């Protein structure tokens, strides 16, 4: 894919206002970049934890207590501080106003504060690591999480601040969609990524406020040995609150991911539209509704009553229908297109494979007799990683590649991008298929010392992690290397039809020099 010609403009990236200009900015694009950089740091820290934990069996460099501390920190980092907020915060902030034809988010102050809350929350989390890391597990099951050592309250306040970041991001997104759409753009003229982020905005607002409250409640219950989650309380109470809040959190990571993939499918198919657009929107709305009704099944292995399990299993399985419709529409859009074989295309294929495996594993878990057997095994750990790393992370990478020319004004190398994506996909499957199979064998989650019989499969998994990291390094070097030697991208390097491609790459302050023209079809070139 060749980029455009002509002199590079620096757009929002320039301006010569230095670090102060960035930290004080209210521009959605700069805030998105800051989210990207900060999230990358969080991801790297979580990855380092994962690597050290993977070494446990072979090296003996960490003891049981340290292992469980690291397992807790890995879960908190990756789930609450990376996967959940990544796409809405990074791509949502950057792309949404551009796709709506807006000059900025509706509440620029909220944009700035959402990043500050996130950064402060992360910093407090890091402080808690020095003050005394906790080993409660990232799901904080009571009454166990009420005891033990560690600066739990510091971490809880950090997570509360991060959740306030979700809340402000969510409110901002919803208000932006309602008030900043380009004149003439109806709801059903929004690209599917905007729909995904918009729906996730509601979840971010509701879940962010609830999570901020319950994590502080838990911290207080622990500190003062009382309260609704305190000693003597029903151990299922915390689980109900926690999963009611965090199960939708998984959806608000996945809904924008579906939006990213849908936009890329529409873009690479080059058919001037998306087959089944309204059906896809309806399916995403259905997933939003179902996201608040499926939490119970996460408790199948930790005390959920049999009657409730039947209801929650049925509701979980109901998600199959909207997911099937969305996948059908992707396939139908690609069929008879003039498909661009570029790096984002490879990420789309990787997403379909990996999120597909995660979804099928979810189907297995919702079959109750099987689900009860597997509920507390590494099978569930592998499934989470397929959905989060294989789904959300892959969609984030796909989106970063798709919108990188817009973000930076530079084109990256397509061949290297495709190779990095393929390596990432191979490594991820090498890493997590063995884990899935260990779970089928009955190995429990969080097991410190694996039996010798699993040494072979664990070695494959370990090599897989390194292959995955190699893929990620190639991807990162390709993207960031393009800042130095990439061709100028031009406004619309993919020939895509949504409004963001009418802006210059990178867009200037205010995004558009002329008011963009929106039609009824969000993907009409």
């Amino acid at each position, binding site marked *: 894919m060749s980029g455009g010609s002509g002199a590079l403009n620096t757009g929002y990236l320039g301006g010569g206002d230095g670090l102060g200009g960035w930290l004080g900015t209210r521009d959605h694009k700069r805030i998105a970049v800051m989210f990207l950089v900060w999230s990358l740091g969080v991801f790297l820290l979580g990855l380092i934890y994962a690597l050290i934990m993977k070494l446990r069996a072979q090296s003996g460099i960490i003891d049981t207590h340290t292992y469980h501390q690291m397992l807790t920190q890995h879960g908190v980092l990756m789930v609450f501080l990376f996967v959940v907020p990544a796409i809405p915060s990074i791509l949502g902030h950057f792309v949404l106003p551009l796709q709506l034809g807006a000059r900025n988010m509706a509440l620029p102050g909220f944009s700035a504060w959402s990043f500050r809350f996130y950064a402060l929350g992360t910093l407090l989390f890091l402080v808690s690591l020095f003050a005394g890391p906790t080993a409660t597990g990232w799901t904080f099951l009571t009454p166990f999480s009420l005891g033990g050592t560690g600066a739990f309250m510091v971490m809880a306040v950090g997570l509360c601040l991060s959740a306030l970041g979700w809340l402000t991001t969510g409110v901002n997104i919803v208000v932006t969609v309602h008030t900043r759409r380009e004149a003439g753009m109806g709801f059903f003229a929004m690209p599917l990524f905007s729909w995904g982020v918009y729906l996730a905005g509601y979840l971010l607002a509701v879940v962010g406020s609830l999570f901020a409250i319950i994590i502080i409640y838990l911290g207080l219950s622990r500190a003062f040995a009382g309260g609704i989650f305190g000693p003597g309380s029903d151990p299922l109470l915390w689980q109900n609150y926690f999963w009611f809040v965090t199960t939708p959190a998984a959806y608000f990571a996945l809904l924008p991911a579906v939006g990213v993939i849908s936009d890329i499918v529409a873009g690479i198919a080059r058919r001037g539209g998306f087959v089944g657009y309204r059906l896809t929107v309806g399916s995403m709305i259905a997933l939003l509704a179902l996201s608040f009704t499926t939490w119970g099944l996460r408790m199948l292995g930790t005390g959920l009553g049999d009657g409730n399990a039947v209801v929650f*299993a049925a509701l979980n399985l109901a998600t199959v229908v909207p997911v099937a419709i969305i996948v059908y529409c992707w396939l139908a859009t690609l069929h008879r297109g003039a498909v661009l074989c570029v790096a984002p295309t490879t990420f789309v294929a990787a997403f379909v494979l990996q999120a597909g495996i995660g979804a099928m594993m979810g189907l297995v878990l919702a079959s109750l007799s099987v689900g009860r057997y597997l509920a507390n095994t590494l099978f569930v750990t592998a499934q989470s990683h397929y959905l989060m790393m294989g789904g959300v992370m892959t969609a984030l990478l796909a989106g970063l590649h798709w919108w990188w020319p817009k973000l930076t004004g530079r084109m990256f190398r397509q061949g290297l991008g495709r190779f990095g994506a393929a390596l990432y996909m191979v490594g991820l499957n090498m890493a997590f298929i063995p884990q899935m199979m260990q779970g089928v064998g009955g190995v429990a989650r969080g097991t410190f010392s694996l039996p010798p019989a699993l040494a072979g499969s664990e070695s494959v998994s370990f090599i897989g992690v390194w292959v995955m990291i190699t893929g990620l390094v190639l991807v990162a070097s390709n993207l960031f290397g393009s800042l130095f030697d990439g061709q100028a991208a031009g406004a619309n390097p993919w020939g895509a039809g949504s409004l963001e491609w009418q802006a210059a790459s990178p867009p200037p302050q205010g995004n558009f020099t002329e008011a963009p023209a929106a039609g009824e079809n969000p993907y009409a070139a």
Partner: protein
Amino acid sequence: MDVGSLTGRVPLSAMLPGAVPTATMGSGTWLPQAAASGAPAVDKPFLGLYMAGALIVVLVTGLVLTWVLTFRRGDAGARGEPVGRPNPALLGAWVLAALGLAVWAFASGFGGFLDRSVAPYGAYDIAVNAKQWQWSFTYPNGWTADTLHVPTGRPVRLTLNSEDVIHGLSIPALRVSQAVLPGQPAQAWFEASDSGTFDLGSDIYSGDGYSTMRSALVAQSPTEFDAWLTRVSDIFEGRTMEQVGELLYNRKGCVACHSLDGSKRVGPSFKDVYGFEFDTREGVRITADDAYIKQSILDPNVSVIAGYEPVMTPFAGQITDREIEAITAWLKTLSSRGGTAAAAADSTVGADAGQKKETE
């Protein structure tokens, strides 16, 4: 009395002479060897869904790759066929197939799940206690061990409780995984089909020792199981008859209704019972001698002391003559008339029916 001797707790090595299991939770990368009659209710749906899921993933990913490779165009200005509406027949069939898959997933696991919910009548009961980071198993005769022995071919019902935090009982070979919550007893049941020693551990994180919270399940033929239980729970070994009596008082649950300090509970206190005379509810004067105590244990509601209700569970078939002798011997130590019943028979009877009558 030493508490350890009351609970009968013995180390794992003593439970399994010469056959200490190297219990490790899950040791393979596929379903473990099934050793329970209920395993097919897990294995069949799993295998079916696993194969179907793999096929679907291959199909969908294959279609994406096929479409991409078939319809790829390198030139920048290329445009594909303009989009239309989804083919209603194809989409309908696709969604129906997905719905069918969901219904199949639900139905295939539903029956087996319900079967596991309620244990069959007559199941062999074992109480399971969990605490950081130890399992203990108490058998109907009161014997407590840290290894779970079960007879094959007979339903076994586990009643599980936790002393501290949430634990998870996991026996992969039996396809059993059951959360154990503090203050909320749970039940699980299974029927071991094969003899052998199988992994047993915890699958819910409960602290640093979580990975070492392991034991073993030993499934034995009913004959071997009975022999094992008889051997390890020979409560007379190393104890006096009086000590055995006190042990049985605790294990058989007598403690719930009979005090040792003279206070009235559901049943009369055991203090100063032996050798004394009482009026029954029917107004018959009896002496609490060996014969009466034996009758009161085996068929207690035939001759109930006045002032008490005939509510005691008969122990006929649940206690041996020797154990009754041990209880009787212990009751004598609690009585100021702990001599012979004949001596008691010489005593003078008081006036108030239903009250214990001490002789002059």
